[in-house]
């Protein structure tokens, strides 16, 4: 069976697109071949800056032929009908077969679709794939109309038979005719050469200074760079994103270890790292003893007669120019904060618009400061410190360094806060108040940081909700989903007991907007809990106990036009409690007792609900132990009494694990009770008493969580 080799050779493909493109090429071509009736043993896609390649092993030589039988008109049908059938089936009259059927003699045609040779199919599939390739951005060039990521120069497409002989697949796309040749490294091995199959291709490319496999290039870079750093008594700073990117910028990686001028070594390491990575794609090399960044690694795309000396000198010069800018900014900024303090540095925020309906950045800072002072006691931070941190947390936006490197916002705030003499967690809060930036970003735990982070995000949310700039569909230009998720994670992970409802209500006048925002927050909580492995129905069950409001309250408020729902107690909007309860219930349900208790509860609830519907009453009169007939019934009475007290206490102290344990203690008596006792007894007294008993069970369990919401 033949092997197929394809290479699409172009001008430089953006590094970030290469891996995906190699994968798309493999997937689309193999899908197309299989759909056309071919099979194959294995396929692998590759990418370098100038080529996408695909190697397919063990492709079938042709697609199988297909036979189809088609029933035609009766023999005595009009000529016209028979002619029509012949045309449709594409056969001649003498090829028809006559069969006897109940209604008389009928024509049958056998249509054979012959198999097609692999080259024909490959040509068709490849052209289709090239013309519809899913590049994130593609372009035209010259006078042609073909689209590719950058101009496409040549197509290599060969089938290699078992004897090792290569046959070019005849095909052409927009004037580019497929052949069996390619090019090596742009500078180190110019000129075309022909190949006979994948092994030959990969080997000749390597001789022509091209490493085909991106993984191999990355491994080579990492290995060489680590070795050179180690030899200098230093260590390479790991950065997999940068490694993948750099591997996509070179076909022949040559690792060079360079010097950073001594005058820049005192810059903050993050400044060095950012400047080197963002602008120059350099790796940082660190002194393991001091943690200082002392050198850099750059990866060139070629070997040179002077062993990279010219290249390294050039790179060092560019870096020095970049770093002297950074140093200039750093020193100016330090002078500013020493002379005028961070508040002085941030004075210009009054002239920067945050949003035309929400005022300037200075207005925003003032709001965050007030909010931080207000919520500090709930977090456990000192109000004065929280307010101080909030007042200066955005000042670094006015620094020259952040003007040049916006990605250093916050971090520079920390350095400048230290330089200005702030202490007690204020510098850290300047850095950490932006966090968490996403679902996997670390959540701050220092109390001042948590306070300012919450204040910042709550101000953003209430501000944009108040001016009706909420996220819609995929549009979320102010990253409000991220802010809400941040609030949730800050609250849940730091066990913050904050009355979000009151905080929000104090800032937004319209009750329905307040509820809309609370609901938005509750959806983010669901998201967090689900990511923790808590089932959807478990979350529902916990929102519907004391914390039910978030969903239903809005409905009620709108339906009843009764904003007094807003006056519900603090705990009902306490997202932390909902989360705790959900986690406890989730682990409880994973135990055998939890599972059994749930079944028992459902059985009790079903019987009770049916009876209530039938009788049209609610059995909430309380059961009387004196009507207990069976010992299991008495035991259940006792167990309920004990559990009720425990659950009440546990709810009081918010110890949900204890509440679940108390529920678990009902499992055995409940099982025994169902085993021994018939609820629908002939005696109406007994029946009513037992139904009342079931009602108590339901009531008690619902205090822990709304178990009726649970599935299974």
């Amino acid at each position, binding site marked *: 069976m033949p092997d197929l080799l394809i290479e699409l050779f172009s001008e430089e493909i953006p590094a970030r697109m290469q891996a995906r493109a190699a994968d798309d090429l493999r997937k689309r071509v193999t899908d197309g071949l299989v759909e056309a009736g071919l099979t194959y043993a294995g396929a692998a896609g590759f990418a370098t800056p100038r080529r996408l390649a695909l190697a397919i092993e063990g492709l079938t030589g042709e697609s199988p032929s297909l036979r189809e039988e088609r029933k035609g008109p009766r023999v005595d049908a009009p000529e016209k009908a028979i002619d029509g059938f012949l045309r449709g089936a594409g056969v001649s009259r003498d090829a028809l077969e006559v069969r006897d059927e109940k209604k008389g003699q009928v024509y049958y045609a056998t249509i054979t679709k012959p198999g097609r040779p692999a080259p024909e199919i490959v040509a068709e599939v490849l052209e289709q794939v090239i013309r519809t390739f899913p590049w994130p951005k593609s*372009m035209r*060039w010259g006078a042609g109309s073909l689209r590719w990521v950058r101009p496409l120069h040549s197509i290599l497409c060969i089938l290699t038979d078992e004897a090792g002989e290569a046959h070019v697949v005849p095909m052409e796309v927009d004037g580019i005719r497929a052949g069996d040749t390619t090019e090596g490294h742009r500078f180190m091995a110019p000129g075309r050469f022909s190949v006979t199959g994948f092994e030959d291709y990969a080997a000749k490319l390597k001789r022509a200074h091209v490493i085909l496999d991106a993984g191999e290039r990355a491994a080579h870079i990492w290995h060489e760079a680590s070795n050179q750093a180690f030899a200098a008594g230093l260590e390479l700073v790991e950065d997999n994103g940068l490694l993948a990117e750099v591997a996509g910028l070179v076909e022949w990686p040559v690792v060079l270890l360079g010097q950073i001028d001594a005058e820049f070594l005192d810059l903050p390491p993050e400044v060095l790292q950012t400047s080197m990575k963002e602008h120059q794609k350099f790796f940082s090399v660190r002194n393991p003893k001091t943690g200082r960044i002392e050198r850099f690694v750059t990866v060139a795309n070629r070997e040179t007669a002077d062993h990279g000396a010219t290249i390294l000198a*050039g*790179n060092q010069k560019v870096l020095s*120019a970049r770093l002297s800018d950074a140093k200039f900014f750093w020193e100016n900024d330090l002078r500013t904060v020493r002379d005028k303090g961070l508040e002085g540095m941030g004075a210009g925020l009054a002239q920067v618009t945050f949003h035309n309906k929400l005022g300037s950045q200075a207005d925003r800072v003032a709001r965050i400061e007030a909010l931080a002072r207000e919520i500090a006691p709930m977090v456990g931070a000192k109000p004065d410190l929280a307010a101080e941190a909030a007042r200066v947390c955005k000042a670094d936006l006015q620094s020259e360094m952040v003007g040049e490197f916006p990605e250093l916002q916050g971090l520079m705030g920390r350095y400048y806060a230290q330089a200005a003499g702030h202490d007690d967690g204020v510098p850290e809060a300047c850095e950490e108040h932006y966090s968490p930036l996403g679902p996997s970003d670390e959540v701050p735990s220092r109390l001042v940081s948590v306070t300012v982070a919450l204040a910042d995000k709550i101000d953003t949310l209430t501000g944009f909700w108040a001016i009706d700039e909420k996220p819609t569909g995929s549009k979320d230009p102010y990253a409000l989903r991220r802010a809400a998720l941040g609030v949730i994670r800050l609250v849940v992970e730091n066990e913050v007991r904050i009355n979000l409802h009151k905080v929000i209500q104090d800032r937004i006048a319209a009750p329905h907007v307040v509820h809309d925002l609370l609901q938005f927050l509750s959806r983010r909580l669901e998201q967090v809990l689900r990511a923790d492995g808590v089932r959807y129905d478990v979350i529902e069950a916990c929102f519907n106990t004391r914390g039910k409001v978030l969903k239903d309250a809005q409905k009620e408020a709108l339906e009843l036009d009764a904003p007094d729902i807003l006056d519900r107690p603090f705990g009902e909007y306490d997202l932390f409690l909902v989360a705790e309860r959900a986690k406890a219930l989730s682990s409880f349900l994973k135990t055998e007792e939890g599972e059994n208790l749930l079944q028992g509860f459902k059985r009790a609830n079903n019987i009770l609900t049916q009876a209530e519907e039938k009788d049209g009453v609610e059995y909430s009169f309380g059961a009387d132990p004196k009507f207990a007939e069976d010992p299991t019934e008495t035991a259940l009475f006792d167990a309920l009494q004990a559990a009720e007290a425990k659950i009440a206490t546990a709810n009081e102290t918010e110890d949900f694990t204890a509440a679940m344990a108390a529920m678990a203690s009902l499992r055995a008596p409940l099982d025994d009770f169902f085993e021994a006792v018939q609820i629908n007894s002939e005696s109406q007294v007994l029946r009513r008493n037992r139904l009342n008993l079931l009602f108590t069970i339901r009531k008690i369990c619902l205090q822990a969580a709304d178990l009726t919401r649970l599935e299974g």
Partner: protein
Amino acid sequence: MAETTGKPRSFQEIILRLQSYWADKGCAIMQPYDMEVGAGTFHPATTLRSLGSKPWAAAYVQPSRRPTDGRYGENPNRLQHYYQYQVLIKPSPPDLQDLYLGSLKAIGIDAELHDIRFVEDDWESPTLGAWGLGWEVWCDGMEVSQFTYFQQVGGHDCAPVSGELTYGLERLAMYVLGIDHVMDMPFNDPDAPIALKYGDVFRQTEQEYSRFNFDVADTDVLLRHFEEAEAECDAILGQPADDPKTGHSIVMAHPAYDQCIKASHIFNLLDARGVISVTERQAYIGRVRALAKKCADAFVTTDAGGRAA
């Protein structure tokens, strides 16, 4: 005549070598456009000539102004007035990358010793309603050129596609000549009887224009000029195509485009004066783009714009 081998010795020698290289490759060597522009792309030889179906090949130096980049001549490589070298070939030839690398060789950058890389960089000009895909070209980690395949200009699809090369001349020359501060760069031959450095030619103007751009330019006058340029552009394009005097059809795409260039530069000055807020900024850019688009619409109805004869 500039020497064509060995290392160049001055700023002007690098320019002369580029001129002779691209002349040799068949480009029409044009002169700078006689108006204030932010980049070589604004020259009608690029903006307008990249439109329509007629083949085109031009190269030129374009003095460019970016008022916000002024540093009173003190920053080693930031200037409010600098030179770009611009090449535009339509349709883009298949060997444009090789032609470009040849031009680096012509100015003394030997690809055998240096690391030359094409790094993704998509180009967009919101004021011209133009975009293209290409790269910034790196030489040993320094950006030495922009390389772009124009896809759209003035809201029109480019067909055929033009290949555009832009060299930042000061930066490139400083690199080739090994100079650390732009003002120290030899402008003419260092052995000339009157040897001039870049600073001898431009230090004073950098100071004067930095002060003017940042603090003195009269913003009321500028705002008025912006409105006037905008109105004039509309008025020019509002004229009927048929010229009553000659009886010919004369669409005045170029005079209208001059007004667009003017509006664009005035906007840059206003920006440097710090009187444009973030929200207003978008609105101004949109107004300039609207002018560019109208001029492009007009140009494609002319002969040079490829109107079917």
